[in-house]
């Protein structure tokens, strides 16, 4: 047998190099956490919700990977591992959401999914997350049914559910409008609109028992033309209107109602109005009551984290972040808090069960609110919420918010173990507002 020293040496070098490369690749893989980020990137909900949510995810992930976010989030990625994001469009049917979720888990092997704006998407994806044992953080959907209809192990929602929005809206309406005798509702005819109106009416029965409902209007989602609804409201004796309209529907209603003098005659309580304020600009009438599904955006208080978030977002995208951006930011920061805590406990890359254990019941600081995972056996967050009244600022040429009131989380959320409807029908017992 003949030996060839040069060839053997080359083979040895190549073998060592290959082993080193494989080890490096394995380490790189271990040093990365793959996240699936799902949000509307096309369709009517993309502009007001989906894209602001995606934008916030990009900013947060970039800052966390660089270790450049403000304290206490100034460590790299999740537990020291850089985040690798895959963005998926939420557009399509609920069946499509489940298919895309399975693709993320089974083909792309993501470690966790953060996403979903639509309540329908969240309700469809939650069982799939349990089946596939995939850590999933729902970021913007509002339906309280997610954790009321049964416990979840793998599903979390940092963002408070929609009951908070309606209860705070009723509290603010009764605070700012005196001697209410009648009011009306204009809400989209699907789960979000109907649930929002139901919770608002139940809260009003507690807070203003003598006030009665005048008109209950449920136009089709994305109807666009609201002439008949505006006439019905103009001929009513309502003192104000409740609306959970969002997106183009909200803006179209404001344009049409303003042109016909409705909003000059009676104010509207807009539970999601904050997301449209920048676009409406001077088109938003004075006296409109504005909510933002939390103390977010123009309804937020300054803080180092909030100031940083607003600056980097505005610098990059040219507009200020609205509440969907905050919902995404606090969802990613909640996941980071849990992951870092689990990693510190494990002393290495944590397993999903360790992250889940760390996530349950935690309290952490979002850009604009302290979140406590207090409902749904520690899987559903609560926070304070604020409402304000629009007032046009001639100097800036934009509407400001005045008379902003903050309601503590315990004032506007049901206690753990009780459904929102049962709490509201029982007179909101145990609410702590001071």
């Amino acid at each position, binding site marked *: 047998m003949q030996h060839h020293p040069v060839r053997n040496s080359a083979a040895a070098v190549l073998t060592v190099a290959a082993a080193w490369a494989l080890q490096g690749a394995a380490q790189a893989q271990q040093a990365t956490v793959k996240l699936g980020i799902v949000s509307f990137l*096309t369709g009517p909900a993309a*502009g007001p919700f989906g894209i602001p949510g995606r934008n916030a995810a990009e900013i947060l992930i970039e800052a966390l990977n660089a270790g450049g976010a403000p304290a206490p989030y100034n460590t790299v990625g999740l537990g020291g591992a850089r985040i690798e994001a895959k963005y998926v469009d939420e557009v399509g049917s609920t069946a499509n959401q489940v298919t895309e979720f399975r693709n993320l888990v089974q083909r792309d092997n993501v470690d966790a999914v953060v996403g979903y704006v639509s309540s329908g998407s969240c309700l469809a994806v939650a069982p799939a997350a349990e089946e596939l044992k995939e850590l999933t953080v729902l970021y913007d959907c509002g339906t309280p049914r997610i954790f009321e209809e049964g416990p979840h192990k793998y599903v979390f929602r940092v963002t408070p559910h929609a009951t908070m929005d309606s209860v705070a809206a009723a509290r603010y309406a009764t605070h700012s409008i005196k001697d209410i005798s009648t009011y009306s509702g204009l809400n989209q005819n699907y789960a979000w609109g109907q649930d929002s109106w139901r919770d608002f009416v139940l809260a009003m029965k507690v807070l203003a028992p003598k006030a009665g409902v005048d008109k209950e*209007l449920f136009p089709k989602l*994305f109807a666009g033309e609201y002439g*008949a609804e505006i006439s*019905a409201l103009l*001929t009513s004796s309502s003192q104000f209107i409740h609306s959970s309209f969002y997106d*183009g529907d909200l803006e179209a209603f404001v*344009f*049409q109602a303003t042109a016909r003098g409705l909003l000059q005659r009676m104010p509207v309580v807009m539970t999601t109005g904050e997301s449209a304020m920048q676009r409406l600009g001077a088109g938003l009438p004075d006296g409109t009551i504005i909510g933002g599904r939390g103390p977010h955006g123009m309804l937020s208080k300054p803080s180092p984290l909030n100031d940083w978030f607003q600056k980097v977002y505005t610098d990059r995208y040219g507009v200020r972040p609205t509440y969907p951006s905050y919902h995404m930011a606090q969802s990613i920061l909640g996941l980071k808090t849990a992951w870092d805590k689990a990693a510190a406990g494990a002393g290495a890359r944590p397993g999903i069960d360790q992250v889940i254990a760390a996530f349950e019941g935690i309290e952490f600081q979002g850009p604009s609110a302290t979140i406590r995972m207090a409902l749904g056996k520690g899987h559903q967050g609560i926070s304070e919420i604020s409402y304000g009244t629009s007032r046009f600022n001639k100097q800036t040429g934009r509407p400001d918010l005045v008379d902003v009131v903050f309601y503590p989380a315990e004032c506007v959320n049901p206690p753990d173990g009780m459904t929102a409807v049962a709490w509201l029908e029982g007179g909101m017992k145990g609410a702590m507002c001071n």
Partner: protein
Amino acid sequence: MLTAFAILTDGLVYAAYLFVVAIGLTLIFGVMKILNVAHGAFYAFGAYGSATAVGLYFDRGLPVAGGFLLMVLAGMTLGLVIGFVLERGILRLVYGKDEVIVVLVTYAVFLILEDVVILIWGPGTYPAYQPLVAAGNVAVGRLILSGYDLGLIGFAVVLAFAARLALRHTRYGRLLTVVIFDRETAAAFGIDVTTVYTATFVLGAVLGALGGAVMAPKIAVTLGIGVEVIVLAFAVVAIGGMGSVEGALVGAVIVGLCRAAAVHLVPQVELFVIYGVMALVLVFRPYGLFTRARPRRI
């Protein structure tokens, strides 16, 4: 009494909206026998083009009247260009194919154009409310009517009369009527059916874009507006009879009044009423209200 008046005016405003968006769809179907799903994209392009032009115009503080003219011209120009490009570039390749294939092609075109909208205008919203505000309003008791809405009713009436006059009293209109009635006989008599097809498709596209242009000040121009319109326009055209301009007008008035009555009197059925009316009409008149009886061909 005020409620009855409100139902009448609201119904007519909604009917005007429906007629303006449906007339192009029914014209293309009547002549070319194509259920053009891309019509929703024409509406969207008209609305986006108009909103962009209106925004730029009013930002410069120019006279209001010019803004109305620009609003209409911007939408129609976009409809003209897109309609011509699509007809010459895509649709002429599938003439004579099975109807299902042609519908699928127009659906594919619709999806492509939706993405083109994102490429050009992005995912944001384009408000163009200045003409709506500039048109003012009129008070009738507690009811306040928008001047723009009243103008929209007038615009729809003028459009209906213009369509009727053009179809009955112009050479091209008569040619169109012949092709609608029987394409093969029209071709046998020497009518250049291909040219009529091109002109009709471009005209339908212009009308679709015009619908978007005049609606832009009332709506928030945003992604997905074309989807809603195509469903509504189809319901109106099905009620009136596919291919009938008079049918589209009557269908729009019926749907408009029924919907307004539902909102004022029984708001719980508002979502159902449009399709309920459509189903009721189709039970008794399967081809719609204004479709002529067809001889059976052997």
